[in-house]
């Protein structure tokens, strides 16, 4: 009702504005209408990042008008909806002011529910009576009574939608304060609010899924001053940004305990993302050296700080007496990281058809956070592990040197070559450094102005330093990771990349392009871990316009991603190293997508469009073992399919007004063991090692949706 009033008021204001605009030198349009839609099941995917309006809506508008010696412009879409966008700017010859506001929903589930009541932000509770009953009567040894009590309770679980909305307000001012000078200042504020499924644990596999309350704000400001003189541009940049989490902790009840004990807490507490601050400064230089050569340099320095106060080791009062004898080593992380980036490029064209570039880049994440040693850990608020542990403030640096040569022997042929050397260093990691040498070649053929063929190939060989086994060991020297494991992000690697494309464009009635891409990574020195991965993709685009009345566009894309990983199962404190325990997972992710659009100008006043789309993304999970008992079994295949069609018939009422009728149909089919048949309560195993897990049941559902709308566009 309130929204309808706002819509009516906005439309009335628009009508007044349009009337006034007719007298002024304004132009623009407004499109609005009414819609009815139906969805067979309340699956959030249909409105994942949008709001499908029911009833009146304003789809888009534009307003432009001279004002006070300048020009004002305002435009927007989806007004008064949770996916609205409004923007405006004002241009004067020497300066411009811009502002925009966008809301973006991310709806995750409309069918989830929870047994928790949200007493205040960040505190989620179940009734004391329930906790007390389970603790005293049902106990962990009596599974039947526990299941009965919890099932009765969860049958009345309240619905809790999962999802959040991000609102972004941006403003920018550009000015030219003097000859050669330009000044630009930008600011943005991003607010995020809602709920997201989050896991709390009270011990191995005893999961309590809760809804993480999200109330976050992010602010960002940046100023740039540029000076340009003849062949040189010099730019200075200063920026500040801040993240504030308005709910810094999440406290959630343990449904199975009313009072704290050394082995089981009545509550758990998670420290949500800490506030942080960053400032940055940098400069850019672009200099034309003459003789068709140029130098481009950039330097940026940023410092991020995080000093949110620490929570105690645990919220468990029974454990707290014990942990209290081990005071925390400080009050906050005193987190500080310095980012330094240096980019240098020199480009020259000694001949009109020959160019060369030398480049260097250094990017360093220097983590200056102190190393903190803690007396122990209470990882699920339910027990105290008194082994001292020390933090590892990871850092990294990447240096890239490269040379590129571009040669066009004729107008129809271009040949490109690249050699690149990358050196990376990683602090506190099992691989201290790695080096990669890569070479790349590319050829572009344009035998006709309307025909282009491109081929590209890249080969890279990354060589990692020897493994520092200390990072796989505890402080006492016990092995806690398989020595054969190599983590793929720092492992030795051979990379092959190939691309080919053919485009036929610029000659009516047909435009066609074909693309193919191949990327293979082989971790050739990795006994355990990711062995290799492969990605292939192909795409076809077609536009056919046989005459002024018809336009046909179609696209098809296919992508196939394969990963092959080796692992070894072990159930002992120190990992077993027998090959007979090995298993392997080969995963295949595919996607096939197609779109089609037909436009038909039936008469001068009638235009018909028809569109359709199809997306299907299956996953295959092949698990194998040679000596395991029982042997590995494949997981069932998964898929997500979404397809739909839509049509619009538009009729020009007058030169300034159109009316359109639309219909759309969409179908969604999900089949995934990870996101379907999720119970609110899961009990497995037998007492006393029984696992008890509580979920929110945010299952993926199939649906069919239809929408019918009537839309009017009025130009002025």
């Amino acid at each position: 009702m309130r929204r309808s009033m706002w819509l009516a008021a906005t439309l009335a204001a628009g009508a007044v504005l349009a009337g006034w605009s007719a007298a002024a030198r304004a132009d623009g349009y407004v499109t609005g209408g009414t819609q009815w839609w139906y969805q067979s099941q309340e699956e959030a995917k249909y409105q994942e990042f949008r709001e499908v309006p029911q009833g009146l809506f304003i789809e888009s508008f534009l307003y432009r008008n001279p004002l006070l010696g300048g020009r004002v412009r305002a435009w927007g879409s989806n007004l008064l909806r949770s996916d609205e966008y409004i923007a405006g700017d004002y241009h004067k010859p020497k300066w411009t002011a811009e502002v925009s506001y966008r809301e973006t929903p991310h709806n995750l589930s409309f069918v989830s529910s929870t047994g928790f009541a949200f007493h205040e932000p960040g505190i989620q509770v179940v009734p004391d009576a329930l906790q007390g009953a389970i603790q005293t009567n049902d106990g962990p040894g009596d599974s039947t009574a526990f299941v009965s009590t919890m099932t009765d309770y969860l049958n009345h679980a309240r619905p809790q939608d999962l999802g959040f909305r991000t609102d972004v307000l941006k403003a920018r001012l550009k000015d030219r304060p003097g000859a050669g000078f330009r000044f630009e200042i930008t600011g943005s504020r991003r607010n995020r609010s809602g709920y997201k499924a989050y896991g709390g644990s009270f011990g191995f596999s005893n999961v309590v899924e809760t809804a993480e309350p999200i109330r976050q704000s992010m602010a960002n400001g940046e100023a740039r001053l540029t000076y340009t003189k003849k062949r040189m541009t010099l730019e200075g940049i200063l920026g500040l940004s801040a993240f504030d989490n308005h709910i810094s902790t999440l406290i959630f009840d343990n449904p199975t305990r009313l009072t704290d004990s050394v082995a089981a807490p009545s509550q758990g507490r998670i420290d949500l993302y800490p506030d942080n601050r960053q400032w940055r400064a940098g400069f850019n230089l672009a200099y034309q050296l003459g003789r068709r050569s140029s130098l481009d340099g950039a330097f940026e320095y940023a410092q991020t700080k995080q000093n949110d106060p620490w929570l105690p080791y645990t919220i468990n009062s029974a454990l707290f007496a014990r942990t209290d004898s081990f005071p925390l080593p400080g009050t906050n992380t005193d987190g500080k990281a310095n980012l330094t980036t240096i980019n240098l490029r020199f480009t020259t064209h000694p001949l009109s058809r020959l160019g060369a570039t030398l480049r260097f880049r250094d990017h360093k994440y220097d983590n200056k956070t102190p190393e903190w040693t803690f007396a122990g850990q209470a990882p699920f608020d339910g027990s105290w592990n008194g082994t001292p542990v020390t933090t590892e403030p990871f850092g990294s640096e990447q240096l890239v040197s490269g040379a590129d040569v571009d040669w066009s022997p004729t107008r129809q042929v271009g040949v490109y070559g690249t050699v690149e050397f990358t050196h990376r260093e990683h602090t506190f990691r099992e691989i201290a450094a790695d080096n990669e040498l890569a070479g790349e070649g590319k050829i572009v053929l344009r035998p006709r102005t309307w025909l282009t063929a491109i081929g590209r190939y890249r080969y890279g060989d990354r060589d990692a330093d020897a493994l520092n086994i200390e990072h796989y060991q505890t402080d006492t020297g016990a092995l806690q990771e398989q020595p054969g494991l190599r983590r793929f992000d720092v492992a030795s690697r051979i990379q092959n990349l190939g691309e080919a494309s053919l485009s036929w464009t610029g000659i009516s009635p047909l435009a066609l392009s074909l693309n193919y891409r191949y990327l293979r990574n082989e971790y050739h020195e990795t006994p355990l871990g990711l062995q290799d991965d492969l990605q292939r993709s192909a795409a076809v685009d077609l536009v056919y316009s046989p005459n002024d009345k018809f336009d046909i566009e179609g696209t098809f894309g296919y992508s196939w991603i394969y990963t092959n990983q080796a692992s070894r199962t072990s159930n002992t404190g120190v990992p077993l190293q027998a090959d007979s325990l090995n298993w392997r997972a080969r995963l295949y992710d595919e996607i096939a997508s197609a779109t089609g659009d037909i436009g038909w100008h039936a008469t001068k006043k009638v235009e018909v469009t028809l569109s359709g789309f199809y997306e299907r993304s299956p996953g295959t999970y092949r698990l194998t073992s040679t000596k395991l008992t029982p042997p590995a079994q494949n997981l069932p295949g998964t898929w997500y399919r979404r397809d739909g069609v839509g049509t619009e018939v538009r009729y020009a009422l007058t030169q300034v007004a159109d009316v359109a009728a639309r219909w759309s149909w969409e179908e969604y089919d999900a089949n995934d063991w990870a996101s379907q048949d999720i119970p609110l309560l899961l009990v497995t195993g037998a007492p006393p090692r029984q696992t008890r897990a509580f979920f929110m049941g945010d299952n993926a559902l199939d649906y069919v949706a239809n929408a019918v709308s009537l839309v009017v566009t009025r130009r002025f």
Partner: protein
Amino acid sequence: MNHAGTGRPWPFTRGKRIRAVLVLVAALGVAGVGAAQAQPGDAAGSLWGSASVDSLAATAAYVGMSQCVECHDTVADKFEPNPHHNAHVDSHPAGTTVQCESCHGPGSLHVEAAGDEKDPKFYAIRNFKYMKPSAQAEVCRACHMNGEQVHWDQSAHARNDVACQSCHSIHDAKSEGGKFLLREARATQLCVTCHSDKRTELAHTAHMPLREGGMDCSDCHNPHGSIGPHMIRGVSNNDLCTKCHMDKRGPMLWEHPPVRENCVTCHRPHGSNNDKVLASKRPFLCQQCHIASRHPSTLYDRPDLQSNRLFNRSCTNCHTQIHGSNHPSGKTFLR
């Protein structure tokens, strides 16, 4: 026939694939010859871009916008609400506000030709349609050489002969509100015309809100060049991602190394089959790097379908603070 030991059969044999490619190339060739005969080149009969006209154009003088409007009145009408119209330029022979000749060059000879396409003087003016990409950029960058465009000369687009006009339409923009004078309603629609593999990736079930209009390629990439890899709007992948996901920026008390080093170790930002645009399905993604002992090393297969270490959010059902924890007891990202 299996490919490279992956166990994945191709739908066609090698011979059939080669034949299919040859047939396609032949068909394109035949069609190309046909089209070329039917339509004899895009500038045939014209002198756009010829050397003789270029030297002629050097002798032209500035005549002012009022002369242009006499013939190009519809273009002038469209130009009036354009941000370029009357924008200030520090110094230019055509004047200190942007007019037709600020971009198209002096027009006296073109005016003298009075629309006669047989007169070489008709062609003595800049027509961007027939200019090389680098020549187009030279005109645009007379003004646009700061901020967004400061790194253009070193960008991948400049190196690959992408012209300003490939994406921008100065006189007939289709973008919402005319913002950035784009050739399409949204930047993403433009980008995928060349980067069609990314269009396929964006069609994955897990994706960022590009196709819904909540964001655009240009929110993460600067098509005019940047100091980061892949023309991203940050000095590194993490610097880019944490501009919006600032909550993950840290530094945390307990760090997860790949999180701090590179977000795309675990995520596929253009789209994925897996929740949270993850590169692989959990728990296998985690098990690519964590084998250790007990549950990280365990094989979760068909009999475990309803194991809370396999379904729903798998490992992150418990290790929920996987991006790093600031809790003194958060070493294993449970708190």
